[in-house]
């Protein structure tokens, strides 16, 4: 699978990552090489599902949560109980 710069740009948009043009070009070359290696995987038929184990659920009860001030302390901007962000809509 050859990844060109436009395909790298499309994936970067999905991944929310910013690259300059040189960065995109480098990413395209490296991804092409790594995907070439990955493509050596055999294409096996699906095995019948063996059921497997399910994730146990815990009781739906209220517990003491972590301290809100300690959480807020890590936020780049936090005021009056809210995370402050740039405009979401124009």
């Amino acid at each position, binding site marked *: 699978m050859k*990844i060109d710069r436009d395909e*790298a740009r499309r*994936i*970067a948009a*999905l*991944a*929310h*990552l*910013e*690259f300059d043009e040189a960065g995109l070009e480098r*990413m395209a070359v*490296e*991804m092409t*090489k*790594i*995907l070439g*290696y*990955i493509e*050596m*995987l*055999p*294409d*096996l*038929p*699906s*095995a019948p599902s063996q059921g497997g184990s399910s*994730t*146990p*659920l*815990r009781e739906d009860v209220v517990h003491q949560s*972590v*301290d809100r001030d*300690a*959480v807020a*302390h*890590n*936020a*780049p*901007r936090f005021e009056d109980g809210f*995370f402050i*962000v*740039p*405009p*979401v809509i*124009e």
Partner: protein
Amino acid sequence: MSDVLDLPFTEAREQVSPAEYLAESLRAIERQNAALNAFLRVSDSPRGAFPLAVKDNIVTTEMPTTCASRILESFRSPFDATVIARLRAAGAGIVGKTNLDEFAMGSSTEHSAFGPTRNPWDTTRVAGGSSGGSAAAVAARMVPAALGSDTGGSVRQPAALCGVVGVKPTYGRVSRYGLVAFASSLDQIGTFTKTVGESAELLGVIAGRDPFDSTSSAEPVDDYVADLERGVRGLRVGVISEGLDKLSAEVRRNFDDAAGVFRRGGAVVDDVHVPSITHSIAIYYVVANAEASANLARFDGIRYGRRAAAGGHTSLQETYFASRGEGFGAEVKRRIMLGTFALSSGYYDAYYGRAQRVRQKLRDELAEAFRTHDVLLTPTSPEPAFRIGEKVDDPLTMYLNDIFTAPANLAGVPAMSVPSGFTAEGMPLGLQITAPHFGERVMFRAGAFFEKETGYWKRRPRASDRR
């Protein structure tokens, strides 16, 4: 031996007071950290009965947790990871947080935003990765024990390259609550110590069900120290044939000698085939990156972590792109890109689906091998520690270092690396012992026997501590 840090902590803590033990550790860090860059942060007043170092992707309340990433440079967790809470209760004093490849993505600790960790046996070489800081800290006798995380070999490979014991328990054996997630179906917290017995003791403390991690297992915690002195007479030991053709003559000879130690101890040693091991790197770099691309979506500069300066970014969307663009390093971006691609519409089955099917085949083959064997042997790493800078610009060559370690993560089985000797240049090598699910007890039994017969753990590196 005069130096208390040369002893297993199980002996050392009987010889010195807790305060002296911690002070001795802090002095050793002070002497060597400038040369090794094993610690990103050191505590100024640790409390406890024995010193412990913690990889900086496991959260602790008294020190920041950076994951060696710019994006988390100033993050301080409001809670302790479950392993930290358990170890504190058992007397551990956290002396510092150790260096790693950013978000545990790498095999050399060169992908840290805060510079590489250097190998205590030769400071021009890597310490391995991603838990390179923890491995170097134990090898250099800065601490008797350290925690790491292992997603594709990140405890075992640096343990081998630094000449210490590194353990990856069964998936679900140890709670992941408070371990910053990389690949959730592969991640497991593990231990570094000088000796097998110390790791067995530490695992006994951190193992067990945790209501905060729904993937932690309710399987009863075994007595890991019970069989340490039992020897290997009658033990069925399989030597995995795949991958051995790629080893240098020196590493191959070391591995053959290791198998011979088990044979002489009365174990039944024979060859076993696990053909899909040759695909493990390809499977791993699809599955791990796919999971990483989802797990790392949370780092967006809004609730915690670095937010890009407003500059020209006027919308929320632009803030995401800029914060992630400047906060993540090159290797993390590469893996997020590969993972996003493998999960994207039109490619999902050709990459992710295909990798999961081969992963299942690998699991089946290992289960089959364990029907007739108690433990399986491979080298931990195909080569000893390489030079800093040698592979950092060639991601695929770096990835191939995980060939022997990734299978245990993909199958969820426990595996450990035990020091197996030295190259002619004096660099350590490691033997990997893999056991079936929840077979840690027999893994420690085999490891303890090998260690007792060979005694390599007693040799101490001098490159960073010439006193």
